[in-house]
């Protein structure tokens, strides 16, 4: 591990991977990566590699879990044992249970749940490689997968984190910055509705720093939002061309 004295930002204001403070990592989004799923997406954000699949709307099993006035949304966030430095046990950890819940709650406001009563939609997220900010990348990918599955939505949900590295606020923290940095603020956002659907924080920030971090994260979200839409267009424009 690195020493505590090590600086994460050099004199020119560049970070360990050469990024500027307000710069995102390279992002690649691929729609329809899995043929069995009703909708799917693959995202790479820096060294993060994450698959998201959506199954449904389908019948609810066991039946008593069904809701008469709306669909049930379920989500499982899971990390592959080889996704991190030290092997992670494949059994769901408490962290994964919490993240499954907050990811589900970040996507729920975007979906017209009342359109499909008595059904369930399952979202499965598998983190193949983790490099900090996996919950955000998972939400970004899962929302694209929901759109790919044709689930009626108010808006795409896009997520991005900002945090405090050394003494300044920086966008989209990678693993090392997250671990030795001072704070991390993941935010999920629906840009068209100006609605924050996930907000967490750990570390220590003043109110002013927190405000800056949220605003920077929202800027990042807006950039990734364009990439989400572009990825969806790439798939469906190609399909249309193939049909013609």
């Amino acid at each position, binding site marked *: 591990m690195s020493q505590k004295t090590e600086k994460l930002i050099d004199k020119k204001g560049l970070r360990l991977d050469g990024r500027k403070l307000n710069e995102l990592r390279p992002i690649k989004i691929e729609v329809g990566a899995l043929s069995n799923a009703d909708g799917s997406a693959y995202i790479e954000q820096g060294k993060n590699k994450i698959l998201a699949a959506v199954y449904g709307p389908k019948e609810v099993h066991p039946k008593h879990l069904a809701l008469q006035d709306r669909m049930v949304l379920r989500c499982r966030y899971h990390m592959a044992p080889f996704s991190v430095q030290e092997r992670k046990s494949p059994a769901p950890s408490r962290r994964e249970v919490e993240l499954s819940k907050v990811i589900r709650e970040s996507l729920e406001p975007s979906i017209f749940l009342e359109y499909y009563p008595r059904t369930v939609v399952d979202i499965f997220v598998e983190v193949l490689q983790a490099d900090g900010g996996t919950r955000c990348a998972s939400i970004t990918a899962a929302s694209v997968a929901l759109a790919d599955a044709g689930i009626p939505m108010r808006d795409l949900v896009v997520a991005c984190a900002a945090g405090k590295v050394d003494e300044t606020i920086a966008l989209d923290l990678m693993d090392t910055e997250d671990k030795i940095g001072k704070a991390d603020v993941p935010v999920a956002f629906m840009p068209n509705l100006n609605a*924050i659907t996930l907000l967490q924080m750990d570390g*220590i920030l*003043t109110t002013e720093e*927190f405000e800056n971090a949220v605003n920077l994260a929202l800027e990042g979200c807006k950039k990734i939002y364009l990439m989400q839409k572009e990825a969806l267009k790439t798939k469906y424009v190609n399909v249309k061309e193939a049909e013609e």
Partner: protein
Amino acid sequence: MKVEQGIIERAEGSARMLLGKTEVMVGTKIEIGEPFPDTPNEGVLTVNAELVPLASPIFEPGPPDENAIELARIVDRGIRESKAIDVEKLCIDPGKKVCVVFVDVYVLNHDGNLIDASALAALAALLNTKMSNYEIEEGKVTIKQGYTPLPIKRHPITVTFAKINGKLVVDPWLEEEQVMDARLTMAIDDDDNICAIQKGGSGYFAPEQVLEAAKIAKEKTEEIRKKLDW
């Protein structure tokens, strides 16, 4: 709100918190264990929460569900991120033996805002915790006479909001929670810094609302600090 400390003699520390009709008990236990490899000089904090079936008709027996796990992790995050416990003082033999502090949150009556009640009860129990004096003699841990209080240096206090009809409601009770769109919790430390946040529920917040909540949380924690003298 009302807090009582030291109510369970067998526990190293304990507290009972009443927040309206919500009642939460927290007991702490200290055991000797191994440190994490990346923090060989630091003690370990473990928080667990049980939504005991006798507390509400909606709680079922069984292993902690996602609500219990989320509750435990929010309480944990407030204590951990604010550096409430001086974990370096819990080290007995660097890299080999440290004190492990178990904080067990026991919800006894659910009438809303379990997060704030649990976080306050946990802090009250930690402030009440006494640990044995451990020493290393010839590579073995021995227990010396007497007790020392658990080294607590910060006092994180959480404030939870419910969003109802587009408005922020502080410290929601059960009926408010049942109709809320979303929930937001902020933990504030002794210097008015924010040290943990968690949004919950399947609704959303406008960005301005989040910043407003941060300001209200500061005022409310001041009130709570005065009331409880922390």
